[in-house]
């Protein structure tokens, strides 16, 4: 039996032969069942997942427990491996957008933006300012929707079921807006290489303003429900602390890193998509525990509302997609009158556009951290390689450091506050 299969064995019971390894952070009062008897304590390896309500997808964790204390965590991934990166190599550049969107399925606008932006870099294509602002509006709305879903399911894991109904209520409003602009709630494929698919329809702005007006009050409601809840505070405060240096060593980004006190946000550090035009703050935590992770995300929702407000107020006039007919489809009405437009349309739809050889890496700030997209072009109409640096994949490494030494109930809270998306991890 191979080593891997050996590890996959679900349940095994063994006895400790030596003292627990140093570095385990046993807190006083936790698993305090007689220090001298620890030599005889049993280690129990249990299998969490891939079908488990708290794993947020099909994540599998092999947990070694000593009593209720977690001694070791081993994540096993790949249960939703879809081969998206490989599939992208078979598609024309503009068709691959549909594929990359389905990686991290809660932040589809970010995936599409990272990919489109990498292709635009290779093509050296300018994106009109209106398209950039429309992209910012949709990405920030997507960030709010993603954080809302995290809030609902994360609170559900800790036992606060009301948050799920409340968060999904507002999330539906955002998905309505997505549906208005693109016709789909999910996986909208709104971003194109060179701009966006269509201009926002009439009525979108009014509906968005209505949403923006009510969202801060709704965040107040969530916080009123959670911040004065003793159970919530005890479950999140001072649990799952990982030192900042460790997080930096592991390459963890996003709200996890910011909760530990590092104000690293690519929207500020390396502005893209005209983020430098907007005035917003980077929320950071002080302790780096689960409560800070929750507070940082709640503050990010508020900041995102502010960014969308500014982008909507300052939405420039002009085209919503580049005028380069070699890259973007001509407007529908031109097809009936212009032979040239018809030819461009035909060429784009049948063959796609060719991208000069080269490689590009674009990193953006997704709701979970640094989302990078690497595209290698060989001069044909299909990418030679597409790779995504998904934040969930990198952040999952921190789980071991968050969970080891805590009790298993706190470990579930850590997993909830980590917010991994398995579609992004496995791709």
């Amino acid at each position: 039996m191979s080593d891997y299969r050996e590890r996959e064995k679900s349940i095994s019971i063994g006895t400790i032969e030596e003292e627990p390894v140093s570095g385990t952070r046993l807190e006083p009062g936790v698993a305090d069942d007689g220090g001298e008897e620890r030599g005889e304590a049993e280690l129990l390896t249990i299998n969490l997942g891939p079908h488990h309500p708290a794993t947020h997808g099909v994540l599998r964790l092999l947990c070694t427990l000593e009593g209720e204390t977690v001694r070791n965590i081993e994540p096993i991934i790949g249960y939703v491996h879809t081969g998206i990166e490989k599939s992208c190599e078979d598609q024309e550049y503009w068709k691959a957008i549909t594929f990359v969107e389905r990686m991290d399925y809660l932040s589809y606008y970010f995936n599409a933006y990272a990919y489109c932006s990498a292709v635009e870099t290779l093509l050296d294509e300018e994106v009109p300012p209106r398209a950039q602002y429309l992209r910012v509006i949709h990405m920030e709305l997507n960030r709010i929707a993603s954080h809302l879903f995290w809030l609902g399911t994360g609170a559900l894991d800790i036992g606060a079921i009301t948050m799920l109904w409340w968060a999904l209520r507002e999330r539906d409003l955002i998905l309505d807006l997505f549906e208005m602009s693109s016709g789909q709630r999910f996986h909208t494929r709104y971003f194109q290489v060179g701009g966006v698919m269509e201009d926002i329809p009439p009525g979108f702005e009014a509906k968005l303003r209505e949403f923006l007006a009510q969202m801060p009050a709704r965040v107040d409601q969530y916080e009123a429900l959670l911040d004065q809840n003793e159970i919530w505070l005890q479950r999140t405060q001072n649990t799952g602390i990982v030192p900042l240096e460790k997080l930096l060593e592991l390459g963890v980004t996003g709200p996890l890193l910011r909760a530990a006190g590092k104000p690293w946000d690519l929207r500020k550090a390396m502005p893209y998509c005209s983020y430098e035009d907007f005035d917003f703050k980077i929320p950071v935590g002080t302790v780096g525990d689960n409560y800070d992770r929750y507070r940082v995300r709640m503050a990010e929702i508020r900041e995102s509302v502010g960014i969308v407000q500014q982008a909507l107020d300052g939405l420039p006039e002009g085209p919503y997609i580049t005028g380069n007919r070699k890259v973007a489809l001509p407007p529908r009405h031109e097809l009936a009158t212009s032979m040239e437009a018809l030819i461009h349309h035909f060429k784009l739809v049948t063959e796609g556009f060719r991208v000069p050889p080269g490689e590009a890496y674009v990193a953006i700030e997704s709701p979970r951290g640094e989302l990078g997209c690497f595209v290698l072009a060989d001069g044909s109409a299909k990418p030679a390689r597409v790779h995504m640096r998904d934040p969930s994949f990198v952040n999952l490494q921190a789980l071991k450091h968050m969970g080891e030494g805590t009790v298993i109930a706190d470990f579930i809270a850590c997993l909830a506050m980590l917010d991994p998306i398995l579609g992004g991890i496995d791709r």
Partner: protein
Amino acid sequence: MEVIRTKVSGSKEDFRAKQLSAQQMLRGDLDGAGLEEYVEKRLLLTKLQDAQGWARKNAIWPLGFGLACCAIEMITVIGSPRNDLSRFGAEVIRFSPRQADLLILSGRVSIKMAPIIRRIYDQMLEPKWVISMGACASSAGMFNNYALVAGADKFLPVDVYVPGCPPRPEALMYGILKLQDKITREPELGWRERYRADGTEEISDAGPDAPRR
């Protein structure tokens, strides 16, 4: 979906009279001709099987099981106040397969995941049903590659397919309504009887006498 609206016949007085006779019946005041009339008016005759099917279709317990993108829309169907699944009696999500009778395959089924899904399905007790939600679970959808099983019906029986990528919550609810129709109309309990699939049992390594799946 067809919605038929019928106006409630009878006036307020009729309704009041009905209420009064029901009260008398419960108190035991009705006898003779009055009781006969009451019974004729109020009694509904049906087969036990039909009544059982009706009860069963309105008490589906889905398994809390998500795979990928479609799982988010599935949670929206169950959890969002807009599409409250408890209207159809199917909101009791159970995370143990032993307590669930509906498996919603929500998302892409990878080759690594397929045996686990089959195992979960085998652990569920009869009668059990499967909804294949979305293009991926039904046919691998747009991902025609090495990693996915092209259709979950290759390794377990699927009762209802819901198209979409991902399907709208309304589409999944329509799928659940279709399943409810199926449950009332086809009361065969086991899936082997339902799909005439005798002779496909796996024989375990323990020998022919071991319990069959």
